[in-house]
């Protein structure tokens, strides 16, 4: 044991001099140790890894507050709706009965980037999750292309505040029932409420409020009771060719909520605004699942890198470092297909394995790596290569580009062909020379965002006739909509549209109709 002469040996007290000494000892943390840990981690992140991050805000919360955060999709605040209560009760039950542990942290893609830390964490876990969330995830949010393109982290908190108060005001004015009717319906359609093919417009709180105010003012200014007394005149039947109609309404439209907000004939202005709120929030969450594996991989790699540097620098002791290894290993466990868990890939495991593999290829490539990755093998710039990948790829393209035979071997990947007409499942590729590319392609395909959500478009509507809205679902081979859910969702759609709606499921290759669903609104 050696300690710096002249300094008293710390008896549990803190001994953090600039640049040296242990950050903490034992499991207890205080706000001082948090700050010191943060500073030490920041130094490594900035000087060695050169991460670019949003300013950080770290909030310490209790278990109950963590449940609250879970409930609102990890957002610090959200409007009131029964579905959040349902989620809360579900999580609470699972947690109380010990079926579910709570996360050590939750991080929000906002600027400043908010990380919630659980108060129960030990000092080491606090340092670990600061490295993981406040630096790993934060860097990913800030630099990844899809997050940059689709989300506006500086506006989201203000927008949520606006949404919450707007919906509360609507409830005051129009009653909870009426608002709930719209929210229920909009929630059912929110997966079909995003623009997929163009960058989202940035949310601007000022403009939103302005729009809302103008809309209301116009309504109040132009109010004239006489309009109510006008007899309903006959509408002029316009000759309305399908192509012209489709052009005018911008059909086909894949964003159902957007179309309803703009075109549904029976909605009141505030109802359109509520739909818009649900739509914009859904849009904000849209990128998350597309890069989940990379995001977790990036954060895990960053924290394990930073924590081992802290250990090398002597800022944390061996006990703490063992705790780090223990907890990291827990997180990156990949159960085999036969060990329960349904055989899906753990995003932490695959992500971390790929990140460390890329680092290995950069610094210590084998002949195989040189063949597979001629452009990065042995370039001795692991951090630079990783940072490039983090900023330019999403899960699908990342796997297609970087999944190496070494990782496939480590995970012992194989591919099953499930053909319902056969009584057995066929193993059609395994991790060998002949199978690497096929497996990689198949795995990447399963991360394709079109895999997550059904591809449903509004294709036509008859404005001068019965106003029936026609939708098409272009199915993936062998995948139809779950019947009951489809019918219930369609009823919600009809509720918003105000007239009958019809959904046709098509085989995209042959255009044969596979199934048809219709729904009409309850009150006409």
């Amino acid at each position, binding site marked *: 044991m050696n300690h710096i002469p002249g300094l008293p040996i710390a008896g549990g007290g803190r001994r953090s001099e600039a640049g040296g000494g242990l950050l903490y000892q034992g499991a207890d943390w205080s706000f001082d140790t948090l700050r010191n840990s*943060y500073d030490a981690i920041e130094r490594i992140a900035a000087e060695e890894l050169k991460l670019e991050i949003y*300013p950080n805000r*770290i*909030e*310490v*919360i209790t278990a*109950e*507050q963590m449940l*609250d955060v879970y*409930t609102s999709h990890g957002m610090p605040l959200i409007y*009131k*709706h*029964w579905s959040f*209560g*349902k989620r*809360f*009760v*579900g999580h609470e*039950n699972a947690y*109380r*009965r010990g*079926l579910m542990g709570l996360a050590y942290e939750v991080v929000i893609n906002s600027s*400043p980037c908010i990380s919630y830390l659980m108060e129960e964490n030990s000092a080491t876990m606090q340092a670990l999750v600061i490295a993981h969330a406040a630096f790993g995830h934060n860097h990913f949010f800030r630099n990844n292309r899809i997050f940059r393109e689709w989300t506006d982290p500086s506006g989201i908190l203000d927008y949520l505040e606006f949404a919450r108060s707007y919906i509360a005001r609507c409830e005051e004015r129009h009653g909870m029932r009426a608002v709930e009717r719209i929210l229920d319906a909009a*929630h059912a*359609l*929110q*997966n079909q409420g995003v623009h997929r093919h163009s960058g989202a417009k940035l949310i601007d709180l000022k403009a939103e409020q302005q729009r809302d105010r103008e809309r209301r003012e116009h309504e109040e200014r132009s109010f004239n009771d006489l309009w109510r007394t006008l007899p309903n005149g006959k509408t002029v039947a316009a000759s309305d060719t399908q192509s012209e109609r489709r052009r005018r309404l911008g059909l086909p439209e894949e964003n159902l909520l957007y179309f309803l907000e703009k075109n549904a004939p029976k909605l009141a202005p505030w109802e359109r605004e509520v739909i818009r709120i649900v739509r914009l929030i859904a849009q904000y969450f849209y990128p998350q699942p597309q890069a989940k594996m990379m995001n977790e991989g990036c954060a895990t790699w960053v924290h394990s890198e930073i924590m081992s540097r802290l250990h090398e620098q002597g800022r944390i002791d061996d006990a703490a470092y063992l705790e780090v290894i223990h907890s990291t290993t827990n997180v990156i466990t*990949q159960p*085999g*297909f*036969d060990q329960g868990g349904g*055989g899906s*890939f753990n995003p932490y495991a695959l992500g971390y394995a790929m990140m460390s593999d890329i680092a290995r290829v950069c610094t210590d490539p084998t002949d195989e790596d040189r063949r597979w990755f001629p452009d990065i093998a042995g370039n001795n710039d692991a951090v630079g290569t990783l940072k490039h990948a983090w900023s330019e790829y999403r899960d699908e393209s990342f796997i297609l580009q970087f999944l190496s035979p070494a990782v496939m071997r480590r*995970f*012992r*990947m*194989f*591919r*099953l*062909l*499930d*053909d*319902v007409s056969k*009584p*057995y*499942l*066929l*193993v*059609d590729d*395994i991790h060998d020379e002949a199978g690497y590319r096929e*497996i990689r392609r198949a795995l990447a395909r399963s991360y394709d965002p079109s895999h997550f959500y*059904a591809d449903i478009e509004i294709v036509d509507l008859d404005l001068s006739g019965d106003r029936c809205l026609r939708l098409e679902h272009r*199915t993936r081979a*062998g995948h*139809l*909509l*779950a019947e009951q*859910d489809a019918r*219930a*969702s369609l009823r919600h759609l009809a509720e918003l549209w105000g007239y009958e709606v019809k959904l046709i499921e098509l085989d995209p290759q042959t255009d044969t109709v596979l199934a048809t669903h219709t729904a009409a609104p309850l009150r006409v």
Partner: protein
Amino acid sequence: MDIIDRRPNPHGKNLENRQRVLNKARDAVQRAARDAVASGKLREVAQGSAISIPSDALHEPSFQRVFTGGSRDIVLSGNKVFSRGDRIQRPPGGKGGGGGGAGEAGESGGGEDSFRFVLTRDEFLDLFFDDLELPDLVKREITTTETMASTRAGLASEGSPSQLDLGRTMRYSMARRIGLRRPKTETVRELEARIALLEDEAPGGEELTALRAELALALRRLNRIPWVDPVDLRYRRFTQTPKPSARAVMFCLMDVSGSMTERMKDLAKQFFLLLHVFLERRHKQVDVVFIRHAEAAEEVDEEKFFTDPRTGGTIVSSALHEMIKIQKARYPVSGWNIYVAQASDGDNSASDTPKSCLLLQETILPIVQYYAYIEIVGSGAIIRGETDLWRGYKRVAESMDQLVMRQVAEKRDIFPVFRDLFARRAEASP
């Protein structure tokens, strides 16, 4: 970088959302609550507990794809023995592995696809006894004794210091200060400042003298007129107001004779238990008297009434006598609403039935609000004649509205009968 300690923030952020879920699933929750009671164990249930409701009451639909036909490929990890071309038996019962979707419901565990709720005792009982009411409680409310309660009654100029109304006092004080033109401290300070300034610049000037006089006046006023004067003080005044309270007493009469089998006693107890919880819940002012009888009747406490076994012959009138005795001694008609619930299997010694009916008709029914008679039918007897007691009571019931009688054969009857007896009527019956 900021570190914020959010732990002291207000808790229960999701209480309102939780309330909304309850409302959303109110019917389902209510049904579940009643099922929980029907299956016994009201005691435990009413302590606040978990109930499960079918999850479709709270289902949130969305467009979801399911694999229905054709072929697909799946990449998995953890290969140990397979090589290319191997065929694997399909896992039983499914079309293959990762068929997600079941997610949320799986957490509940309580049966398939159900959603578990932990209700507080209050929530539970609210749902459970929703729209039930003690009949006719209004009727004698006027005659009930009164308790006194303190209510605010304006202000007083004297009182105890703890009741000082500071806002009001300061308002009076300000009015007085303005009325008497008490100079403000700032004005005095300003004068002093100006005097000091002038003393430096032009000592002995005319303005200075005037200012000094003004200052002297202001100071005199300041000293004479206090900031707060005793006349300003105002105290909150309270008066005692009589508070009408509907007092009621409920007599629970149970037959514990030998002819009552354990099962029948159990049914009777269930009924009373329900009644007891209901009364406790709805009417804070209700006294409950437990009387059990075989050949002789005795008043017992709640614990004994529900748990202590007893056997013997049956004389119903003994219980009625006991009830009248207690009522005379402790619950004068002028001050109490009186309710009686009686449970029996209908067996009674033949000579006693006419006596009981007479007692009921002449003495008891005229003074009670409501008399509920539950006859517990033996499980074996599907076709069963009316018992003596039932026949006798029925004749009485024809002429007296207060007497209501029902038969109970099985556990699941109890709640419907109970609801039937205590359902809130739209208009009080005449």
